């Protein structure tokens, strides 16, 4: 008797090498794969849980400073290099891959108030409490040479901040006024003032590089135009703004870190209402830095935590804290948008992952596909109560937690009071002012 066999072509199922993936024949008939929504929901739930399981953002702590870290700066060309200035006038240069300090300079007497690198990465500038601006070489002195600044400029007043132009050999300092300096000269080529209070920080716009923003202790934020050598506009907020940071992808957007625990994102063309108020901190926000993708920013606060906000959300997506981290004074987002550094009172610089549960290192294509799929699932089902609860859950130190509760109560009380006032007064006599409008005291032309 003859037996007939089904014949198959081995080419269709035999792998060429052992490392190849097995080809899986698929049938996409929807009747064979029922319950797609419940199955994807379960997958999303699992992905969310795994995200929380793997959320371990803290990478390293760089210690060595002998006083609180007052300022940080990124190297424009090298991802591994970070500069930091401390409250005792010491400047350190760190190597992030080795997690070691590679150079140490006693730059100033008193605080190092500001530090910035030149756009080419060959030198950097510091300003300090000793009324000097100093330019330093990025590379250390060769053997036998003394550690000396390239240039030193003696000023009449204390400089509180410094920022370098993104393309040209120009830098700006702030103090009593905003000064714009040519690197080659010892006197400012232009000084701009508006009002008489001390200015705490000045920042160049990274896209339209002739624009500057500064914030002063009389609660205002002032914008300057370097080309026309004139201030442009001033906005006065409820409380003092500590720093501002420009969005590196959107030329007219900047975010201000305010003393009233909030951050305000402004469109510089319409300063009368902020685009977004970002609130989650429970103490003054001291520093803010944008991610180079322009989609998120990180803020450092006096409440001993740093938070990451998406630009278009008013609530933070992440909060980082450790037991030992004290008031965070400065924060920077690295240029590859993967890490965050923060310098705090207790003399340490900490390195964090920007995406808490991200796996570091090279991913295989399957891993990548899986993470992408999980990410998309989480997004798709983010409004479902279980998933929302899990993804929002964070452990907070008791102080912050109780502060949040307290502030929630306060906020509710204020709201209630306002409602009552409206209710018990003549209709129309008390207008409701939106939260955004309320925070802006005035815009001065």
């Amino acid at each position, binding site marked *: 008797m003859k037996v007939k066999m089904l014949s198959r072509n081995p080419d269709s199922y035999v792998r060429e090498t052992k490392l190849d993936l097995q080809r899986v024949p698929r049938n996409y008939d929807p009747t064979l794969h029922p319950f*797609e929504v419940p199955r994807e929901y379960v997958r999303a739930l699992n992905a969310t849980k795994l995200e929380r399981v793997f959320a371990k953002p803290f990478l390293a702590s760089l210690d060595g400073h002998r006083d609180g870290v007052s300022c940080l700066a990124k190297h424009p060309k090298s991802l591994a290099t970070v500069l930091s200035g401390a409250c005792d006038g010491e400047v350190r240069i760190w190597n992030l891959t080795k997690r070691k300090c590679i150079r140490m300079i006693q730059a100033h007497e008193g605080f190092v108030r500001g530090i910035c690198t030149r756009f080419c990465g060959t030198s950097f500038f510091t300003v300090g409490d000793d009324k000097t601006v100093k330019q330093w070489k990025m590379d250390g002195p060769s053997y036998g040479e003394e550690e000396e600044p390239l240039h030193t400029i003696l000023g009449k007043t204390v400089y509180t901040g410094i920022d370098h132009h993104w393309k040209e050999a120009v830098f700006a300092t702030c103090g009593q006024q905003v000064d714009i300096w040519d690197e080659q000269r010892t006197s400012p080529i232009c000084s701009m003032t508006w009002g008489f209070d001390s200015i705490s920080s000045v920042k160049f716009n990274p*896209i339209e590089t002739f624009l500057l923003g500064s914030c002063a202790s009389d609660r205002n934020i002032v914008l300057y135009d370097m080309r026309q050598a004139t201030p442009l506009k001033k906005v006065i907020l409820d409380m003092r703004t500590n720093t501002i940071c420009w969005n590196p992808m959107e*030329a007219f957007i900047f975010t201000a870190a305010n003393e009233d625990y909030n951050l305000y994102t402004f469109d510089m*063309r319409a300063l009368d209402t902020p685009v977004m108020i970002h609130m989650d901190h429970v103490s003054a926000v001291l520093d803010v830095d944008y991610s*180079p993708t322009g*989609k998120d920013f990180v803020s450092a606060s006096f409440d001993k935590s740093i938070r990451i906000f998406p630009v278009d959300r008013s609530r933070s997506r992440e909060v980082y804290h450790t037991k030992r981290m004290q008031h965070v004074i400065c924060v920077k987002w690295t240029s*590859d948008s993967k890490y965050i550094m923060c310098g705090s009172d207790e003399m340490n610089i900490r390195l964090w992952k920007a995406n808490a549960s991200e796996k570091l290192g090279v991913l295989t294509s399957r891993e990548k*596909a899986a993470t992408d*799929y999980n990410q998309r699932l989480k997004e*798709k089902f983010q409004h479902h109560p279980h998933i929302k609860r899990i993804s929002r859950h964070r452990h907070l130190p008791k102080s912050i937690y109780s502060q949040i509760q307290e502030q929630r109560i306060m906020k509710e009380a204020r709201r209630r009071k306002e409602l009552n006032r409206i209710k018990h007064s003549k209709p129309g006599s008390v207008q409701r002012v939106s939260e955004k409008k309320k925070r802006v005291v005035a815009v001065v032309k």
Partner: protein
Amino acid sequence: MSSSRAAESLLALNQQEELEDLPREYPLSTSEDEGDSDGERKHQKLLEAISSLDGKNRWKLAERSEASLKVSEFSVSSEGSGEKLVLSDLLEPVKTSSSLAAVKKQLNRVKSKKTVELPLHREEIERIHREVAFNKTSQVLSKWDPVVQKNRQAEQLVFPLSKQQSIFAPIEHVVSGWKARTPLEQEIFNLLHKNKQPVTDPLLTPMEKASLKAMSLEEVKMRRAELQRARALQSYYEARARREKKIKSKKYHKLLKKGKAKQALKEFEKLRKVNPAAALEELEKLEKARMMERMSLKHQNSGKWAKSKAVMAKYDLEARQAMQEQLARNKELMQKIQAASESAEEEGGAEEEGEPFVPDVVNEVQVKADTPNPWMFRNHSGDTKEAEVQGDPEELAEPAAQEAPESEEEGPVVAEEILLKEFKERRSLRQKSRLNQIAKPVGSQEAKDLSSQEVLSELRALSQKLNRESHQSRKQELSSTRTVLAVQREEPAGEEEEPLLLQRPERARTLDELEELGKEGCFQNKELPRVAVEGQQLERNPSNHLGVPKEKKRKEQMIDLQNLLTTKSPSMKSLAVPTTVEELEDEERDQRQMIKEAFAGDDVIRDFLKEKREAVEASKPKDVDLTLPGWGEWGGVGLKPSAKKRRRFLVKAPEGPPRKDKNLPNVILNEKRNIHAVAHQVRMLPYPFTHHQQFERTIQTPIGSTWNTQRSFQKLTMPKVVTKPGHIIKPIKAEDVGYRSSSRSDLSVVQRNPKRLSIRHKKQLKKISVD
């Protein structure tokens, strides 16, 4: 002092003069009084003021007076006059002179111009400066609006933004800037030059250029058409060859081969006539094949397979046949090639038996069993006849029956082609054709049958009888030979098997069909009668079988195969199955009856209906009865509130929305909310969505690879932001998005003059200040 006094007096004189002029210009006031007293004049003024209050006489009247009381040493008092003293008037009395005229002219010019306003306050100026600068800057910034918008809405952003854009340059440009340096390069260049390969522009060899020039457009078109045709033909032939190659039937290939051999022989014959020398060569080839065969033991029935078959041969008809076939092949190959004269004789003899060499369209069966040696052939057929008497009757009957019409239709077609075609047809028909031997056109067949006609007719009669015999006997017989038949169908073995082969389908088929019917009957009741009827019809008119739709054929074929594979179950079933169709139907009915009896107790449908009714009742909103027995009437045991009262206090429940399963008789939809599911459900419509359907749709579209193809899966799970590890992401630049970045330095203005403004700037400033 004296001189200054003199000047004063002169001035006073002048003034007087002018004052004297005034009355001429202005009408006199009504109260013209020369009275010197001051009080009087004041009184007058008051009166005037009062009189002007009524609004009629608002005209301020000039007062005429002598030299004023207050004489200022700085200016001429003009108190009392309604007009200012003009400088040019002072010059009037003096005689006109040329020099003075010029001065007057100048003065007039000055007068015509407006007075210069006071300069603005410094802060005000700064404010204006700022505003202008702000407007300008906002304008500059607004060019980023589309970019920002695009980036915010982008499906995916890949950082770093600036890519190393590949520049497209024509190859000539690249090559022209490059010279051969190394010896290898030079060698290659030399070679290229020798072949006249173009190195630089234009990239055509001289040959190509010439050909381009040579061919006209029409020629090119023609040539192209030709090529196209050739290609089409080629592809057609290729497709055909592939198709034919795919055919698994061994018989078909055998026939094909034989056809080819025959063709070769024919050609050989022709060649012999035309070109004897070439023919000799061909002959030698054949001779060589013969020699090879003589040398080898290939077809000698001495191999392992042959030995195993030899053991079986005693009992197995098929094995015997296979062995004989082998031997026949051996003999065929070993046969000496006839000379020309012999072949002629052969032809005469062959006609009786079905000569293989003759391109015989009519006598197809013998052709297929092509054996060059007639002796061999005869011998062989005799063997088979001895072996199986039963098979023979159909042997010639069926093929002939099928060939006959074809040969008439397609006379001019080559014999081999016909053969192949016929075979194909038969192949397709085999599975479904309900041919009966009786119905076959016996006449034509008889005409062709030459030698064994009588025997055949006898046998045919016998087989007919067999066919009409009782089912059981036939069934038994068939079930025993079934498997054998099935295999035979796959293996077209020589001429002797032909009858079996051709006969088998119908028999086996009828059986198979019945079995199939028996099987299918359980599942599909409707199928049964239809197929049965069909079968009957086919039995009645066998010529109809061609019209049966192809799908049917295929289906039956599949079932056939299944039957072949599962030999056991059909044999078991066959006891019950092969009654007539009516019987089968009866059986079906019986089965139903049986099922009914078995499940007599539980009437599922009624239960279901009842359940549904209950569910509907339960879901209906209930009326609320608020009657209080005993209120307003007698109460007690056995007393019920009156119907009127009850009607009055009955709160009718509003009718709810219609049930969703109202129009679905076989379904109960539970409309109650599931508490356990609620915890997993979204309560509020999330922000970006405007309608709940929108949201539901996004949730219901699966994105996993289980439901999507690989490509769409990748597209669906594309991450929003992609960054490369270890790459520095720079702030967006004007060049990145295709804008021209400003060439001038940010410093240029500052360095020239911090406070200087351009003319346009000034104009703008002015405009703003006017506003």
